[in-house]
């Protein structure tokens, strides 16, 4: 009798444990799915609020029109081109500045710098990455724009170049840390073989290490670009926000992100203008999605190689 009771208890206990285990598994599965749900929600709401614009507004003018003037009393126009161009030019400027410095610094950190210098530089980069974008924006607005104006005598006080330089500084931490990782994961044997063959350290870096890490470095740059395209506050505060078509880096420009941020606060819910801003959001989402996708593919190829 005593014996059966004991085994009964043991049995129950085991059963409870198993039920508990299975329940937890199901709950965790639910949490695991949240990321998928949120991606779907983002898509759903962008489409839900953005598509009405294409049904009611002038969707041909949206993609080909060169005027963005939603508040015009006569004919409001929603041409996205000035903003696409603004985003493109500001980002291009940032790439031109950030890529040489970023890649150079990552080579320096991974291959040349003394461990002690490395240990001090790494936190500096981390702090740079942690500074909120609104702080960068304010710095660009107050300090950097004055420098640019003094130096280049810019057409407008706030201009695309100011935005590019500030964005470059913001891109640097991403580019540096990711390409440093890529350079560091080049197998030691490759470097040693090259050095053993009598090549100098720099020849090894240039001829062996960089080519081997190239796809990783490329992925780092692409991710930096994606960040720059999606960045809002810095460009909003630095570039002056004039939605005009211009190729002059010293004039005021406006990016897609800035347009949404500036105008969303002023539009009535459900108006054509409101839906147009969501349509801009769709374009922005698609662009960053494609760029991240490409970066992912490049990174995968790099990882498979080593």
């Amino acid at each position, binding site marked *: 009798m005593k014996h059966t009771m004991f085994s009964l208890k043991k049995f129950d206990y085991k059963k409870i444990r198993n039920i508990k285990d299975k329940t937890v*598994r199901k709950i965790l599965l639910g949490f695991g799915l949240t990321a998928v749900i949120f991606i779907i929600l983002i898509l759903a709401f962008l489409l839900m609020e953005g598509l009405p614009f294409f049904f009611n507004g002038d969707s041909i003018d949206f993609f080909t029109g060169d005027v963005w003037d939603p508040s015009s009393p006569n004919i409001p126009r929603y041409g996205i081109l000035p903003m696409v161009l603004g985003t493109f030019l500001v980002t291009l400027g940032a790439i031109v500045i950030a890529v040489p410095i970023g890649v150079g610094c990552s080579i320096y950190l991974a291959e040349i710098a003394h461990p002690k210098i490395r240990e001090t530089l790494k936190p500096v980069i981390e702090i740079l990455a942690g500074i909120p974008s609104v702080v960068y924006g304010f710095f660009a607005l107050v300090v950097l724009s004055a420098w640019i104006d003094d130096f280049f005598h810019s057409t407008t006080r706030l201009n695309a170049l100011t935005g590019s330089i500030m964005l470059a500084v913001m891109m640097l931490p991403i580019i540096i840390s990711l390409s440093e990782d890529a350079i560091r994961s080049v197998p030691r044997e490759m470097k040693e073989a090259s050095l053993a063959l009598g090549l100098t350290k720099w020849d090894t870096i240039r001829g062996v290490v960089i080519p081997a890490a190239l796809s990783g470095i490329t992925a780092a740059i692409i991710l930096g670009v994606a960040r720059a395209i999606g960045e809002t506050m810095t460009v909003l505060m630095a570039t002056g926000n004039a939605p005009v078509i211009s190729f002059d880096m010293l004039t005021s420009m406006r990016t897609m992100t800035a347009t949404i941020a500036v105008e969303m606060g002023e539009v009535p819910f459900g108006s054509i203008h409101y839906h147009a801003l969501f349509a801009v959001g769709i374009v922005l989402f698609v662009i960053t999605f494609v760029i991240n996708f490409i970066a992912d593919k490049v990174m995968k190829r790099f990882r498979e190689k080593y």
Partner: protein
Amino acid sequence: MKWKKIKEHIIYSLLRLTGLFIVCALAVLLFYIISGGMGKMSWDFLSSFPKDGMMSGGIFPMIIGTLSLMTLTMLIALPIGTLSAIYLVEYAKPGRFTDAIRLAVHNLAGVPSIVYGLLGLGLFVVFLGLGLSLISAALTLAIMVLPIIIASSQEALRAVPQNIREGALALGSTKWETTRYHVLPYALPGMMTGSILALSRAAGETAPIIMTGAAFYITHLPSSIFDEFMALPYSIYTLATQSSNVEATRPTIFGAILVLLLIVLCMNLVAIIARNYYRKKYRW
């Protein structure tokens, strides 16, 4: 040969300069902000309400707004993020389904912050009717920091050696008991470190809260999570770009930036120190 040496020397110097550039960039930035904001720092500035269209007075409501926003964001994001990381690392079986989740986390990380703002506006403010409020903004920020929390938690869980799991399972623990008592205790510090970094990101984020509940000026503190609120980053933005008297508001902006930076950098510092400590403590 000699020419080659000189060339190498020049290249090395150039590379060193890039390192120097990074340090200078940070130094210049910090110099301007600290020298601009230091004069404003006082207990009065931190603990009183703004006056005269924010040209004088303090930034108390902004600090409270930012802190409550951060707390609320973490309360939402932390359980979702860590539990979903536990699922991905400990439970998910390799296959299409798991790949889809990984892809989603990855893509979520790449979505621009302003698009999260659009989601927050469409979903929480309008569709769910939460209005412009603390809770709308916190939910939006929570979704935004979710991929960061998931990624860092995954990394922390993966760092726990496989043989600890196998040992626990061999002794008859269920999967959950193994995870709960033998994996989580070791992974927890790493998970927390990542979460602190995510939290500091949420504290400084401006674009999403513009559309979901941050207000330019309110005379009282938010009394519930359904109230609009003032937040440091949003106030910095509006004061810097839309103020009627730029010169007069500038000291307030500098002060607000310094406080925001202190909050953000302190959290970063805690995270970095904690990470280094635990890296040394657990060396498998």
